[in-house]
């Protein structure tokens, strides 16, 4: 071994020490080797006088009360610590996704509420909202149909219609509840999917749970959409009323 190799290996054994200490020690030893070579010894001989490098390093470390076996003990075990940067990035992305998702759900719920409220208003005849820029023809027709409504005899009795619409309301509400539940489940699964994704990338063996969460999210979302589509419309009214309702609908 030559001087460079010796010093490099020694430094490697001492890497747990402070940089300055390492420098200090290596410089001193380098100087010693140089002086020995000057006094006639060869590089090999000068180095061999130091003895075994590992033992030498162990003794040096003892002077600092550092356990020389420390690194060896931990080398055998591969400790997979999650990369904190990845985790924080992933969780931030997740938060963004979740926020967007919940925002969308809130919007949907608001829309549904408005739709139902609008329909209710239409039914109880409180106010009629006219779409902006409606053609005159439509306007005239609307006026006609308004007049017609007040004089026309409805096919059903008011109470029956009321009952029916109550049932439809209950039907819709229950389906919306199921939708919310399914969407909630899908959201939670999506969240878990995201969280597990970061862990999977960090090396945890969670691929199975990951796929499960993805499946749960996808099926939850699709079932939710399905149940959402099962809502029933209010019963069709006679033509005049229907037209009035159509113009009055807030959609």
């Amino acid at each position: 071994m030559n001087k460079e190799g010796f010093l490099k290996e020694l430094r490697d054994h001492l890497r747990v020490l402070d940089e300055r200490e390492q420098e200090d020690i290596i410089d001193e030893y380098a100087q010693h080797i140089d002086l020995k070579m000057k006094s006639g010894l060869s590089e090999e001989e000068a180095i061999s006088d130091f003895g075994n490098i590992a033992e030498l390093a162990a003794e040096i470390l003892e002077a600092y009360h550092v356990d020389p076996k420390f690194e060896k003990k931990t080398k055998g075990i591969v400790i997979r610590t999650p990369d904190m940067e990845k985790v924080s990035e992933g969780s931030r992305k997740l938060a963004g996704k979740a926020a967007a998702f919940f925002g969308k759900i809130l919007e949907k719920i608001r829309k549904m509420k408005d739709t139902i409220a609008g329909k209710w208003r239409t039914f109880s005849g409180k106010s009629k909202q006219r779409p902006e820029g409606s053609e005159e023809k439509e306007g005239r027709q609307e006026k006609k149909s308004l007049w017609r409504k007040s004089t026309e005899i409805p096919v059903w009795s008011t109470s029956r219609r009321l009952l029916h619409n109550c049932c439809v309301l209950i039907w819709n509400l229950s389906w919306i509840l199921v939708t919310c539940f399914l969407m909630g489940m899908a959201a939670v699964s999506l969240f878990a999917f995201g969280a597990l994704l970061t862990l999977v990338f960090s090396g945890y063996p969670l691929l199975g749970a990951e796929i499960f969460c993805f499946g749960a999210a996808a099926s939850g979302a699709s079932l939710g959409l399905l149940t959402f589509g099962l809502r029933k419309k209010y019963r069709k009214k006679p033509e005049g009323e229907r037209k009035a309702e159509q113009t009055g609908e807030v959609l």
Partner: protein
Amino acid sequence: MNPQFKKGVLELIVLESVRNRDMYGYELVTEVSKVIDVNEGTIYPLLKRLTNEHYFETYLRESTEGPPRKYYHLTAAGILHRDQLEAEWNEFQERVCRFLKEGKHE
């Protein structure tokens, strides 16, 4: 020579060598080698330990023959420690000699 003997007395010899005058590593190794045969692998870690325990102070002195050299200087604590070790060594040596002498006479 029994390495245990050498190890036991090495610290005392090192401290004694530096008491008279400050020395740098290579010089010190040469001095100690006159008394007992040790290699650098033993002496340098010992110097490091004694320095960390504040028995030695180190400083750099410019040299005409190359890079600046690190000199070891015995501190007050180092002097006290050396005295202690010498006393212990004397007592130890006395008892062992006495024991061996008594053994011979029987």
